[in-house]
């Protein structure tokens, strides 16, 4: 067990190192973070050189990479190469918090709705409800999230308010707070979360309800369910206690995995709604060639994937006694 854990840790660390090297190389070969300064005619060549040197950008590739790696490992994220040298850690912390809020809200809602819809479809297989849910989920899977986002912005920002005869927008279509908002206002924040959450949930609900439906159908066909019926339990008890309980396992593990993957996967949603999370930070840093910001963002996302993978494994073991640490 210890040996297995160590092996796994070593694998994760080596992959993380590879990711950092790849990202560093990618960032380095795409854009020069001092490009802005290089074209500014009011900055003299000497000042420019001094600035490049102060950022350490005159050093060779490997030296810069290992300097970055050393600092990163010791917990020093350094400062941004653009943005007047802002500290990276506060930027990262804020973005991560914003992303996690959106993510946890959207995934939790989607899991709940998805489980409900999927269970209903499985229990009433072949009914109108099942048919409607399956069809809707097919649409959900086929609509690109960014387009769903744009449509939601159109509807809630324009159409609906027009039809209802109120001043648009019905819901804020971008950002985190209303302009001029001071301090934390729960209602304002929630209203800004509404549309991004809806855009994300459209697809997530589709995925989870299909997952739930099929795994509940599997569970209801299992022998222990037949046994439960034979014991004389009511349909309700069988479905809830034996069916749903077992069917929840794949759905919850999938949701855990999704949280890890989506930490970096919200790029599009965040971009559409100008939601200041990891995706926007990643995108801005990428365009600026700011590897000091880009690398910690990518590393955080990669680590989130590993952590949630591991969590999903643990969760799976806890929920399903048949799997308690055999092969994983």
């Amino acid at each position, binding site marked *: 067990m210890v040996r297995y854990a160590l092996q796994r840790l070593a694998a994760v660390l080596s992959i993380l190192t590879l990711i950092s090297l*790849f990202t560093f190389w990618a960032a380095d070969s*795409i854009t020069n973070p001092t490009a802005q300064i290089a074209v500014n005619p009011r900055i003299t060549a000497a000042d420019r050189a001094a600035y490049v040197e102060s950022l350490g950008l005159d050093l060779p590739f490997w030296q810069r990479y290992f300097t970055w790696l050393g600092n990163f490992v010791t917990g020093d994220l350094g400062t941004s190469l653009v943005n007047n040298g802002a500290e990276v850690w506060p930027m990262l912390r804020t973005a991560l918090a914003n992303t996690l809020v959106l993510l946890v809200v959207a995934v939790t809602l989607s899991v709940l709705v998805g489980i409900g819809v999927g269970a209903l479809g499985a229990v009433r297989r072949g009914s109108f409800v099942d048919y409607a849910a399956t069809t809707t989920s*097919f649409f959900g899977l086929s609509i690109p999230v960014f387009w769903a986002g744009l449509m939601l912005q159109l509807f809630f920002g324009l159409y609906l308010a027009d039809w209802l005869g109120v001043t648009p927008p019905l819901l804020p279509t971008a950002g985190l707070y209303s302009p001029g908002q001071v301090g934390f206002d729960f209602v304002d924040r929630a209203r800004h979360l509404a549309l991004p959450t809806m855009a994300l949930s459209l697809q997530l609900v589709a995925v989870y309800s299909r997952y739930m439906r099929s795994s509940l159908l599997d569970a209801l066909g299992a022998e222990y369910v037949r046994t439960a019926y034979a014991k004389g339990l009511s349909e309700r008890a069988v479905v809830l206690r034996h069916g749903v309980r077992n069917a929840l396992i794949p759905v919850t593990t999938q949701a855990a995995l999704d949280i890890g993957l989506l930490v970096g996967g919200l790029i599009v949603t965040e971009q559409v709604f100008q939601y200041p999370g990891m995706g926007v930070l990643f*995108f801005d840093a990428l365009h600026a060639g700011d590897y000091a910001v880009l690398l910690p963002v990518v590393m955080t996302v990669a680590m989130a994937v590993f952590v949630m993978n591991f969590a999903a494994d643990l969760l799976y073991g806890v929920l399903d006694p048949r799997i308690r640490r055999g092969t994983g």
Partner: protein
Amino acid sequence: MARADRDRSQRPLALVWRRFVLRRLSVVALGALVLIAVLAAAADVVAPYPPGEQHLDDILVGPSGDYLLGTDTLGRDTLSRVLHGGRVSLFVGVSVAVLASVLGTLVGLVAGYRGGRVDAVLMRITDTLLALPGFMVVILLARILGGSVVDVVLVLSALGWMPLARIIRARALALREHDFVRAARAMGAGMSRIMFRHLLPNLVGEITVAVSLAVAGAILAESVLSFLGLGVSQVHAATWGNMLGGNEGFMTTAPWLVWVPGLAIVVTVLSVNYVGDGLRDAFDVKTDVGGAAHGNRHDRAEPQAPAAHEGHASR
């Protein structure tokens, strides 16, 4: 031998087709796809204008007699661009699906049939790629490579083959213990003969379903990349994604600019998904339910999960 092979493989496919035809929606979807493909292929003839032709006196004109679906900020005809864009989207979708599936099948077959060290190495690579923050890596690669159709296809294929490789490996592992494989080996068949003549025909169902769903995933992924300005971005080259990306700022005044390419994507991907679903039933392949747009999942619940790639990360 060859002749017997052909007879054997013809009959099941006819059966598959008969079962596919039973599903009305899938047949309708197939029809829609064929129509879309024909329109896109014939875009040069069907489209009223060349896709890059600017009508500078008619900028942001709404749907009208001259421009059935309106014009964009550069005065280009939306209908013409959506038809030409379909060509790119479908080409990317199909070629990514085919490339990724060929690669995934090869890796899976070799790993599953050879086993041992080869298997360990191949699966280590597969798992490593699966553990990457997929969409970020796609974006980084796309940014490095540049904006041609071929670049996009390469990037998406390079990171899209892993799920199928795992499915095929699992099936090959199971199949290689069957008597017909042992018999072939005893008759002196070499590795490639066993893999391609004996194992592969048994995997046609899995591969077909995976290809069809990967088409949907790739079309979505391309649209996302192009929307972000990282996909196909040559001047005047239209794709459904970059039509949306360039114009979303004008959507309140010119809503047709987001409706038209968006609906094109949705109708196409929906059709592909319905066809894939029909194929899955027809081939009787037991698969993952997350389906089309939910790529890169780890197949915890179902060992055979042909998740299409990248869709997942592209939220």
